[in-house]
């Protein structure tokens, strides 16, 4: 079977600081992050001939090319569904471009002022439009606006069906915060959190507490993708894309109201071919990255990607399994969307690359394979990265 497996690698990573107010434009953030990633690869802008972006990113590829000094773009593309399609979908698209020879080296990026609102509206706030139409007209008139409120509906259902409790969701938040406290770049560095803190945090949308919800962040993050052949001459040992995919399905008819009982989910659509293409199983994964917009959805992703059975997530996430260094499957080792910075999942890609280069702060010993899942409950994307030589 033909797939993208092992036909492309990530050779450079770069990001700005993650903050509540960057004080500069989204274009500036994008050019800084991309410029840093290109330099990290040992390349210069003239070597880059492709850009992939999240559809919802406000930056125009041509503006980026002009400002960075990228003279010729032979490939540009964008991936829909925000933090679902974007984080790994932009990398899949870039990988396909270089693997087919349509481009030589492509950057995938995300840059936004989501917290300060300098260009991007805050996702946790309701728009104050007087009217709505289409799918929103069946939700907003009832005061159902934010992703957190929608996820609360799915979380309560999961709790009812499987006996999951809020404290089990809390294990995920605590693991991410644990890692952020070893990462001076993390927005929540120096702010330890316990399960008791999680339980005491204010209710955002019952049963979701504040500490079940991701940060809001200004910043930029980027990675550079090229072929294994070209990667040999570059600065770092390449990190291979062992497999990658996009997944969606008809059950998302209200876009984000997740049907917990659905026999198939966006995650299960991808899972089989992702592991098949990479030629490994879930047991081979050394370090786990799951897009942590809301802790209940992380648990559902862990279940639906087959790390445990559906309904077993509450036990799987316990006993420190997700915490470095002693846990057997550390999760989001730089702190994730919850505690590092909400760079729409791109920050997890960068940390996964560092794990497989062997340069992470919370370095998992002998890490060969990283699994990266983008946001679920919307059409999503995921990938498996492989250490060079593994």
């Amino acid at each position, binding site marked *: 079977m033909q797939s993208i497996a092992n036909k492309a690698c990530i050779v450079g990573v770069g990001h700005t600081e993650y903050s509540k107010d960057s004080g500069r434009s989204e274009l500036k953030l994008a050019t800084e992050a991309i410029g840093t990633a290109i330099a990290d690869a040992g390349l210069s802008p003239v070597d880059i001939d492709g850009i992939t972006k999240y559809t919802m990113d406000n930056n125009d590829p041509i503006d980026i090319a002009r400002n960075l000094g990228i003279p010729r773009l032979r490939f540009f593309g964008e991936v829909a569904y925000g933090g679902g399609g974007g984080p790994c979908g932009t990398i899949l698209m870039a990988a396909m471009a270089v693997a087919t020879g349509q481009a030589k080296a492509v950057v995938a990026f995300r840059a936004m002022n989501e917290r300060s609102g300098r260009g991007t509206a805050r996702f946790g706030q309701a728009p104050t439009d*007087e009217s709505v*139409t289409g799918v*929103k*007209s069946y939700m907003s*008139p009832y*005061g159902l606006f934010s992703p957190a409120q929608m996820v609360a*509906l799915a979380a*309560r259902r999961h709790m009812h069906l499987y006996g999951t409790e809020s404290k089990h969701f809390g294990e995920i938040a605590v693991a991410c915060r644990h890692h952020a406290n070893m990462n001076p770049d993390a927005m929540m560095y120096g702010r330890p959190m316990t399960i008791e803190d999680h339980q005491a945090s204010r*209710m955002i949308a*019952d049963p979701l507490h504040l500490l079940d919800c991701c940060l809001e962040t200004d910043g930029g993050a980027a990675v550079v993708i090229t072929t294994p052949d070209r990667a040999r001459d570059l600065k770092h040992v390449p990190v291979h894309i062992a497999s990658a995919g996009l997944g969606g399905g008809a059950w998302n008819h209200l876009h984000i109201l997740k049907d917990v009982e659905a026999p198939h989910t966006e995650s299960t659509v991808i899972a089989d071919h992702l592991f098949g293409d990479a030629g490994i199983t879930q047991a081979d994964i050394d370090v786990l990255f799951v897009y942590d917009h809301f802790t209940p959805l992380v648990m559902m992703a862990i279940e639906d990607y087959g790390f445990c059975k559906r309904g077993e997530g509450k036990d799987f996430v316990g006993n420190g399994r997700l915490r470095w260094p002693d846990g057997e499957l550390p999760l989001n080792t730089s702190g994730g969307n919850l505690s590092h910075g909400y760079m729409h999942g791109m920050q997890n890609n960068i940390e996964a690359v560092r794990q497989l280069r062997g340069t992470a702060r919370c370095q998992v010993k002998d890490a060969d394979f990283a699994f990266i899942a983008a946001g679920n409950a919307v059409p999503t994307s995921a990938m498996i990265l492989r250490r060079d030589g593994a």
Partner: protein
Amino acid sequence: MSTPDVKSVLAFPYPVPEVGAEDYWQAANDERLVMQKCDACAKLRFTPAPICTHCGDDQFTWAELSGKGKIITWTVITHPIHPAAVAKVPYVVVVVELDEQPGLRMVSNLIDAEVGEDGSAPTITFYAAVSVAFEPHPSGQKLPMFRLV
């Protein structure tokens, strides 16, 4: 001197029917809950859609529902993120499965339920029976909402 837009501050947004959904909202104004019933496979679908989400046929008839259903899940909103929510919290968003067809679900509000300021809602339970009620939005559009039976 301009006056503040009171409606946008004090009310949640009102629905503007998309093409194909006009009859749903008009029926709500007439205090009837209707959904599209496929002429080919007789399945109901929601939200309004141009073709049957079960079989793909594009012929349908608007069918009136009993308005009876059960609570599949809910959340009590205590933290206002919309200006109109400040005066409304705590309020209850429910997902209701309608009696006519397994899996036929809609989002709405549960009204007149006992809800504490802290979000506690002792009378709301999974699969509790509910019945539709039509509540006017300040725009004049009536919205299908539900009450515990």
